């Protein structure tokens, strides 16, 4: 029998929507497809939105690459750049690229984006005329800027203004020709449009409003524009930014249903069952797209669909827009103006400060917002729109912002992040709420904007919300760790990494030595740093360091989990989820004898005895020990469980002895202390009944060997594992897993699970340590085995024998 063969997925279009879909797919079903990507551009996937910032000189091309070539390689994706697909054959299920390469597919993803709309004007083909869509366009514009030429931009919408501003920033005299009488008329009302024009004029842009281009004049290259009303605009560079048109050529010639865009259903499938489509090339329920927020949503749904989820359904989210011109704040969402008698407009205008805000209300609900000059409350208004919240209560105050609408909150000026509610959306592109950002900051100890970006994707797309994210970061860390964001705790300014480094460098072997040598502010530390130091020392000096029970959380101090009523729960180990009648009998007897109120099967394939009184613990353990049961470390920042499935021993699909391998792994790793808890699982085939793909280390058996996966987490924040490698033997599984474990033990920060650790250091790093450096891997494994010699002592048996007896007795009983 064979492992399930991977299906072939071909992606046409190496752009934002296509690659986001691939990323989502790798999270959901890393092993389902062999993926081939064709890109017409010669670059890896980059953040198209940021082209405006590259043009304006705020970013380099390198800064906006989203997925590096290494990323494609590491994820086993075959990438053909600079090689557009010229045709597809749905009957044969193949695509043919410009190079002549023919690639077959089981599933095809069309993510061809859109093309700049080019009006049928004479002279449009002259050199010096460019669109604003890709890196090549930006390079042409920068080249013109170098020569200090004059520029004209056709189109006063979002894209055109960003282009014009970028060119102006580069020192070019720049004019904008716009067909309508106000700028950005699709996003702004007349008043805000005029304010914008005034500001941009002050910044040196020239405007030709109500101007329709008749032709691009010039002989061998563009020399300017002639407008229908006779005006002329001299220019050496003409940028056309009047709109976009879905890029549907391939789909159309292959006979797929196409209207304005490639027609897709709610599952992102086209009219051909094997062909999916996402991004600006699609049309969904009559709608086409031009912003990234809905594309991210499409990517999620399409990935789920590709992964086999029949229930994934795409719904277009509410959209908001901002203009990425540094120093100009514009925000709009929903309706721009009252449409009939039933609509009301609330307007705030401060002409001296150049602030304008308008809310459109209908039935006591906000249905639109336009803001200029002060957009701090944009996210809040947008949230009210999306939630269709009833605002009757605060109608009179809300135009002044959230801080005033909610009288109980004192406004602080600027972006009042304190007054923002947790579910207020901060990053519209990626749909990240304030609550999610705060949670990531506190739980993961994030201290920089980059870390927040990496963990939440907030401000990782257009970057407009970066200042708000920064404010939230300051606000959150400022309160939680009293402005000592980088330090381990209030006792030191040193970071976790620095402390670990010094422990080794200065050979510090006791907590007092660490606190003395590194200048701790409190001589006995605090409840935050002591458990961390205890762990770091134990990990650094396994043979020498004497564990400090008083620096451990109660559960680890008494080797049982404290419950809300002060009683404890007791979970014995069941190796790889296996048990025996005699073990079960012993558990039943203990439950009877000590009148234990609850016996429960845990989520970790073993049995929990809940409600044991502290004084009873040693007796309960003694009885369990007699039946051969030892501590399951259900309380430990250490190895918890190794879940398994029945595997080849019983299952008709099993490819290897997953149960046996699970037992071996648990025997190898039990007793080890780790930065945070560690859970493993071994599944006997890719059906993955042991849920290995959400474990810290997961093994999936296949006919040819064992796939090793790392960094999964099924807890607070679901994270699928990353694929590390495939090995052929059980011994290699043990060696690789042991080495991963040791590197995690030595390098992760206390209370950082493997999932955030892998995200922080990157899979490339893990691969470098485990795959590329064979001797390093073997050495790490040896260090792990060495430290296990001192760790594999059953703590229950020790306590039954009298260790820490005072823990389980009252000191005195008095009247």
């Amino acid at each position, binding site marked *: 029998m064979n492992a399930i063969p991977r299906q072939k997925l071909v992606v046409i279009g190496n752009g934002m929507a296509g690659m986001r879909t691939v990323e989502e797919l790798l999270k959901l079903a890393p092993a389902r497809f062999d993926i081939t990507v064709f890109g017409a551009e010669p670059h890896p996937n980059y953040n198209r939105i940021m082209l405006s910032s590259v043009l304006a000189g705020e970013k380099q091309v390198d800064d906006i690459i989203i997925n590096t070539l290494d990323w494609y390689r590491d994820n086993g994706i075959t990438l053909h750049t600079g090689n557009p697909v010229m045709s597809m054959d749905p009957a044969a299920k193949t695509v043919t690229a410009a190079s002549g390469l023919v690639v077959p597919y089981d599933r095809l993803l069309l993510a061809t984006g859109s093309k700049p709309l080019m009006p049928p004007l004479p002279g449009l083909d002259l050199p010096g005329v460019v669109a604003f869509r890709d890196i090549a366009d930006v390079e042409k514009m920068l080249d013109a800027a170098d020569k200090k030429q004059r520029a004209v931009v056709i189109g006063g919408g979002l894209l055109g203004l960003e282009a014009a501003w970028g060119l102006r920033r580069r020192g070019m005299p720049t004019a904008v020709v716009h067909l309508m009488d106000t700028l950005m008329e699709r996003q702004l009302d007349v008043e805000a449009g005029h304010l914008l024009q005034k500001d941009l004029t002050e910044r040196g842009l020239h405007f030709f409003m109500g101007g329709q281009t008749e032709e691009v004049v010039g002989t061998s290259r563009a020399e300017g524009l002639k407008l229908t009303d006779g005006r002329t605009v001299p220019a050496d560079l003409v940028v056309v930014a009047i709109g976009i048109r879905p890029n549907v050529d391939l789909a159309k010639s292959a006979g797929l249903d196409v209207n304005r865009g490639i027609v897709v259903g709610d599952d992102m499938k086209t009219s051909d069952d094997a062909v999916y489509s996402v991004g600006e090339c699609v049309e969904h329920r009559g709608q086409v797209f031009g912003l990234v927020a809905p594309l991210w949503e499409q990517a999620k749904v399409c990935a789920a669909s590709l992964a086999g989820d029949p229930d994934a359904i795409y719904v277009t989210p509410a959209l908001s827009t901002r203009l990425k011109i540094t120093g100009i704040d514009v925000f709009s969402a929903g309706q721009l103006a009252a449409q009939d008698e039933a609509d009301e407009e609330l307007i705030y205008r401060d002409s001296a400060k150049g602030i304008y805000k308008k809310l459109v209300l209908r039935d006591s609900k906000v249905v639109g917002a336009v803001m200029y000059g002060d957009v701090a409350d944009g996210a809040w208004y947008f949230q009210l729109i999306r939630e269709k919240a009833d605002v009757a209560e605060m109608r009179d105050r809300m135009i002044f912002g959230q801080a005033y609408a909610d009288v109980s909150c004192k406004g602080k000026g600027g972006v009042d992040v304190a007054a923002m509610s947790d579910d207020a959306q901060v990053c519209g592109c990626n749909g990240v709420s304030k609550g999610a950002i705060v949670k990531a900051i506190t739980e993961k100890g994030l201290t920089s904007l980059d870390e927040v970006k990496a963990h939440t994707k907030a401000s990782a797309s257009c970057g407009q919300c970066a200042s708000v994210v920064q404010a939230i970061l300051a606000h959150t860390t400022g309160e939680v760790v009293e402005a000592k964001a980088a330090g381990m705790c209030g006792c030191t300014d040193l970071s976790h990494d620095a402390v670990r480094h010094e422990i080794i460098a200065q050979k510090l072997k006791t907590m007092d030595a660490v606190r003395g040598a590194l200048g701790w502010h*409190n*001589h*006995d*530390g*605090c*409840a935050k740093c*002591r*458990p961390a130091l205890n762990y770091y020392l134990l990990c650094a000096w396994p043979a020498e360091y004497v564990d400090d*029970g*008083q*620096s*451990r*959380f*109660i559960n680890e*101090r*008494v080797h049982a989990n*404290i419950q*809300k009523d*002060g009683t404890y729960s007791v979970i014995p180990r069941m190796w790889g989820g296996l048990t025996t009648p005699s073990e079960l009998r012993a558990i039943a007897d203990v439950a009877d004898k000590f009148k234990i109120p609850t016996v429960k099967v845990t989520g970790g394939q073993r049995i929990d005895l809940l409600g044991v009184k502290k004084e009873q613990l040693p007796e309960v353990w003694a009885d369990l020990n007699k039946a051969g049961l030892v501590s399951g470390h259900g309380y430990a920042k250490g190895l918890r469980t190794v879940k398994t499935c029945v595997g080849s021993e019983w299952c008709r699909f099993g490819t290897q002895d997953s149960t046996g391998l699970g037992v071996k792994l648990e025997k190898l790793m039990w007793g080890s202390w780790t930065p945070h808890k560690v859970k493993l699982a071994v599944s006997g085939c890719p059906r993955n009944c042991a849920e290995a793909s959400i474990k810290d280390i997961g093994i999936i058996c296949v006919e040819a060997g064992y796939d090793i996966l790392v960094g999964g987490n099924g807890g607070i924040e679901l994270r699928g594992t990353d694929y590390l490698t495939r090995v052929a033997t059980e011994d290699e599984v043990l060696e690789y897993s042991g080495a991963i474990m040791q590197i995690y033990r030595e390098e992760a920060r206390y209370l950082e699970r493997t999932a955030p650790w892998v995200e922080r250091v990157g899979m490339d790093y893990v691969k470098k340590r485990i795959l590329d450096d064979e001797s390093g891997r073997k050495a790490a494994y040896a260090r792990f085995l060495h430290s296990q010699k001192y760790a594999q002592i059953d703590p229950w048996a020790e306590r039954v024998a009298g260790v820490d007896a*005072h823990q389980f007795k*009252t*000191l*005195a*009983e*008095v*009247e």
Partner: protein
Amino acid sequence: MNDWIKIGRLSDIPRLGARTVETAQGQVAVFRTQDDEVFALFNRCPHKGGPLSEGIVSGRVVVCPLHNWTIDLVTGEATAPDEGCTRPVVVKLVDGDIFLELAVSKKVAHG
């Protein structure tokens, strides 16, 4: 008042740890700091009754094991932003012997 009751020796309690004493008024937690000071509080966290004796002691505070409130060993008061107070018990240390005065408990600061 001479209601001092001897409950044990300083060495019975681990440094930076606690032991419990059963009394007619309820369980009392007796703490020992790094500097061998001794404090006693009724063993119920002002938050949801967590056993403070099981918390991590540092300086003159203990962190409750259930939801991490920080309780001042001297006054029994929770550290801001949390609010609440657990009743302190008068305690003295004479030649390594620990005595509690249970009849007259220290006044609760407020609340």
